[in-house]
C-alpha cells in the first residue's frame, strides 16, 4: 500500500484539526505582540520611541497651548516589532495581546493609541517641565540625601540652584579643612 494512502486514511480517521476560531475565541500566545499600549503616568517624554520606530508610527508633539505633549501611535503603520518597548527607558510602552485589528475604512484614522501627557509646573519658578516619575527619581537620587519627592517638582534650572544652595550650606556648617 503506497504511503500516501496510509496518510490519507489516517487523516480521515483523525478528523479535522481546525481551530474553532471565527465561532469561538482564538488562542493567543502569552508573548504575542499586539496593539501598543502606553502608560502616560510613566512617560518622561524622552522621544527615543519616535526615533527607533521603523514605521514612523509614533508621534510626539507639543500641544498648542504648550501645557503638555501628545503621544500617538497609529496602528495602521505600526509593524508591531516591539522596538519602542525595548528601548523605552521607563517601561511606559508595552505591547498588548490585542490582535483584533480588522476595521472598516471609515475607522482608518481612529486606530490610534492616543494620550495627552501634561507638563508639570516648577514649584519654584513656574516653568513647564517634563515629568520625572518618582520611581526613576528614587533610582537617580538613591546615593544622595536629597528628597526625590521635592526635587522632581523643580525645573532643571531651579534644581541646579537648589543643589548649589544645598552644597553651600553643607560647606558653611562643617569646619573648614585644616591647612597643612
Amino acid at each position, binding site marked *: 500500500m503506497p504511503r500516501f494512502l496510509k496518510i490519507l486514511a489516517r487523516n480521515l480517521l483523525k478528523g*479535522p*484539526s*481546525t*481551530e474553532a*476560531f*471565527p465561532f469561538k475565541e*482564538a488562542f493567543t500566545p502569552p508573548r504575542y505582540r499586539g496593539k501598543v499600549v502606553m502608560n502616560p503616568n510613566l512617560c518622561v517624554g524622552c522621544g527615543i520611541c519616535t526615533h527607533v520606530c*521603523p*514605521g*514612523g508610527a509614533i508621534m510626539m508633539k507639543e500641544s498648542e497651548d504648550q501645557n503638555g505633549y501628545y503621544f500617538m501611535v*497609529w*496602528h*495602521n*503603520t*505600526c*509593524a*508591531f*516589532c516591539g522596538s519602542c518597548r525595548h528601548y523605552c527607558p521607563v517601561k511606559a510602552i508595552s505591547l498588548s495581546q490585542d*490582535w*483584533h*485589528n*480588522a*476595521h*472598516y*475604512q471609515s475607522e*482608518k484614522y481612529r*486606530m490610534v493609541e492616543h494620550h495627552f501627557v501634561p507638563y508639570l509646573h516648577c514649584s519654584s519658578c513656574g516653568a513647564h517641565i517634563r515629568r520625572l516619575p518618582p520611581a526613576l527619581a528614587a533610582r537617580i537620587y538613591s546615593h544622595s540625601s536629597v528628597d526625590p519627592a521635592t526635587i522632581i517638582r523643580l525645573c532643571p534650572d531651579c534644581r541646579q540652584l537648589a543643589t548649589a544652595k544645598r552644597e553651600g550650606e553643607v560647606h558653611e556648617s562643617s569646619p573648614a579643612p585644616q591647612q597643612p
Partner: protein
Amino acid sequence: MGFLSKIAVRSPWLYRINAGSCNGCDVELATTAFIPRFDVERLGCKYCGSPRHADIVFITGPLTLRVKDQALRVWNEIPEPKITIAVGVCPVSGGVFRGGHSIEGPVDRYIPVDINVPGCPPRPQAIMEGVILARELWLRRLEKLEAGGGERRAALS
C-alpha cells in the same frame, strides 16, 4: 429577495493582488487558505485564480510605482459587487516603506478600500475577521442594490 442576498454572501470567492508586497502577508493569506488549522473554506471561501470570479479581493504591498498600473488594471477586471480588503500595514498607510521614492501608496489613493487589516503581517485570525467584516459589508451593499433597483453601478459606489 433579501433571502437570496443572505445566501450569496455565504460564498465569497477570494482573490489576491500583490502590489509590491514583501510576501509576508501573502504567506499569511496562503496560511489562512490552505492550512487545516485555519481553513477559511469553512466560511464558503475559495481562492480563485481569475479576477473575474472574485468577490473579495485582498491587496497586499505598498503599491510600488512599478506595479501600480497592472494592479489597478487587475482590480478593475473584478466584477461588481466586490469588497476590497487591504491586508498588512503597507497598503493601508505605506508601512515601513512610507515616503520611499518608488512608493505610490497608500492604496486608497487610487482604489476605494473597504476594510483594512493592519499588521506586519496580520495573523491569520485577523484576516479571517476581515473576511467576516467583508461579508457583513457585502450583505449591506446587496440589500442597498436591491432597494436601489436599476442604478447598479451608482448604488455600489
